[in-house]
């Protein structure tokens, strides 16, 4: 009986998380388009609903009802697998992200996270690494030159920045003494307890790594509209095409921003000024600010060359994160 109720609760929770993430991602596209429009002094989507509020739904309908073309000479299995391999790991990271402390509603204890395991951060990193396969499969299976180049570029960038990201996360982990995302949040007390004050170097490295992982502008060589038609998803069409940007630009950015917020900005901690839901509101406010910052960077900067990107990853970011670990270790040793 115990097991069945646990399974039911978990399934319902996962469904809520996945559907919520889908809706959120759809509306993140609207936010991005509005933001990009206003940065370029144009209004963005305006006519579907009030100020374009129904535009994501119209887009989803359009993408879902489009003809799904599969070119003749593609590797069919990998071609279908690739869009899933890019999408599923991105949304799987949600499983370990806590959105707040357990709360009590009508006598039930509701935990706003799917699972709280003691290797949560490592699991998130592992899922992030799996998404490389989606990109490489898409590039290889398409049997076409632009996707191939795009996929290889993205793989090179991802491998470089995964390492830097992993090492940069070690700083906050050392300060919190745990891999569990929930315990990392609980280790940050008060405004000046947030790890951003102690780990600015790690934060900068993680900012760069997130920009590179999610293919946002200074590092968007895998898309590079001017050089590669659309990068590794050139041969895709319909919803299979839609899944790539959805996974990479929106779900990936959202989830990695959430992890950055948990590591550096104290997660859901904040003054209790919104009543019972203030942890959620603080958390989503912080994640939203992070997301807007990434959008801001995306629509400002030009693109690095691909060799410069890998150079920055191995020659600057990796040494910086190692230096950060070294300094943190010495400080922890000295303070005891």
């Amino acid at each position: 009986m115990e097991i069945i109720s646990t399974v039911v609760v978990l399934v319902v929770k996962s469904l809520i998380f996945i559907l919520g993430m889908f809706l959120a991602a759809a509306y993140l596209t609207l936010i991005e388009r509005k933001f990009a429009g206003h940065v370029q002094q144009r209004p963005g989507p305006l006519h579907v609903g009030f100020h374009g509020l129904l535009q994501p739904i119209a887009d989803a309908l359009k993408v879902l009802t489009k003809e799904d073309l599969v070119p003749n000479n593609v590797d069919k299995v990998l071609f279908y697998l690739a869009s899933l391999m890019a999408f599923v790991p991105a949304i799987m990271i949600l499983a370990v992200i806590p959105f707040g402390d357990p709360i009590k509603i009508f006598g039930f204890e509701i935990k706003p996270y799917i699972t709280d395991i003691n290797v949560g951060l490592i699991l998130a990193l592992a899922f992030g690494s799996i998404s490389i396969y989606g990109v490489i499969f898409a590039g290889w299976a398409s049997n076409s030159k632009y996707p191939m180049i795009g996929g290889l570029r993205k793989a090179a960038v991802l491998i470089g920045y995964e390492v830097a990201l992993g090492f940069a996360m070690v700083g906050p982990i050392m300060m919190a003494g745990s891999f569990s995302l929930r315990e990392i949040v609980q280790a940050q007390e008060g405004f000046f307890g947030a790890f951003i004050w102690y780990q600015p170097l790690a934060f900068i490295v993680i900012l760069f790594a997130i920009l590179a992982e999610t293919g946002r502008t200074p590092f968007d060589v895998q898309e590079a509209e001017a050089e590669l038609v659309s990068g590794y998803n050139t041969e895709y069409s319909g919803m299979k095409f839609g899944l790539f940007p959805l996974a990479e630009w929106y779900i990936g950015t959202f989830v990695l921003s959430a992890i950055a917020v948990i590591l550096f900005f104290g997660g859901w901690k904040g003054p209790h000024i919104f009543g019972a839901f203030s942890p959620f509101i603080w958390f989503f406010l912080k994640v939203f600010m992070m997301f807007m910052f990434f959008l801001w960077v995306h629509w400002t900067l030009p693109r690095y060359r691909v060799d410069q990107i890998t150079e920055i990853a191995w020659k600057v970011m990796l040494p910086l994160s190692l230096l950060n670990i070294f300094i943190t270790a010495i400080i922890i040793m000295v303070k005891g």
Partner: protein
Amino acid sequence: MVKLKYVERPKLNLIEKLFFLDFIKGLKVTFKNLIKRTVTTKYPYEKLTPPKRFRGTHAHRVKDGNEPPSFSVLEKFMDINTGESRCVACYMCQQACPVPSLFRIEAIQLPNGKKKVVRFDMNLLNCLYCGLCVDACPVDCLIMTDIYETAKYQREKCVIHMDDMSERGKDFDRRRLKEPDRIWIDDQERIKLWGQIKWS
């Protein structure tokens, strides 16, 4: 012999390297743009009026008493009533045109010896809107209007005829004949519409 000139990339100093000052400068620019007003027009709902010298769909001026002196010389050979197109079928527009085949101009001689223009068709599908025909017209008949919505559903609809051209000409003169040509950089109305232009 081509001389190659190598331009050195300007070196960043340490502070610029450490704090990403160039990034911050760029972010400042985009933030300024973000809070500015948009500069777009919502096209099907709002339409800009082009300047008077805009080269849009062609039209014929009609005989209304404002003709240039050259017309009064030719007038006595022509059978033109007031309010009709003042075209004298001199074929100057066709001569000036880079794609002459887009014109089809026909004139007949009436029993009383006068000349009457019976056909003046232009196939605007071939037209490149260069305006040479307008410059060539000796009686100031052929003009170009400010109408820019020229897309049609049938190819035949893209051919314009003498009747609708003179209607368009009447309409254009009624609207904009009095208006000054906005070609001077200090013209107030031009500045209102299009902003100040700085010449180098």
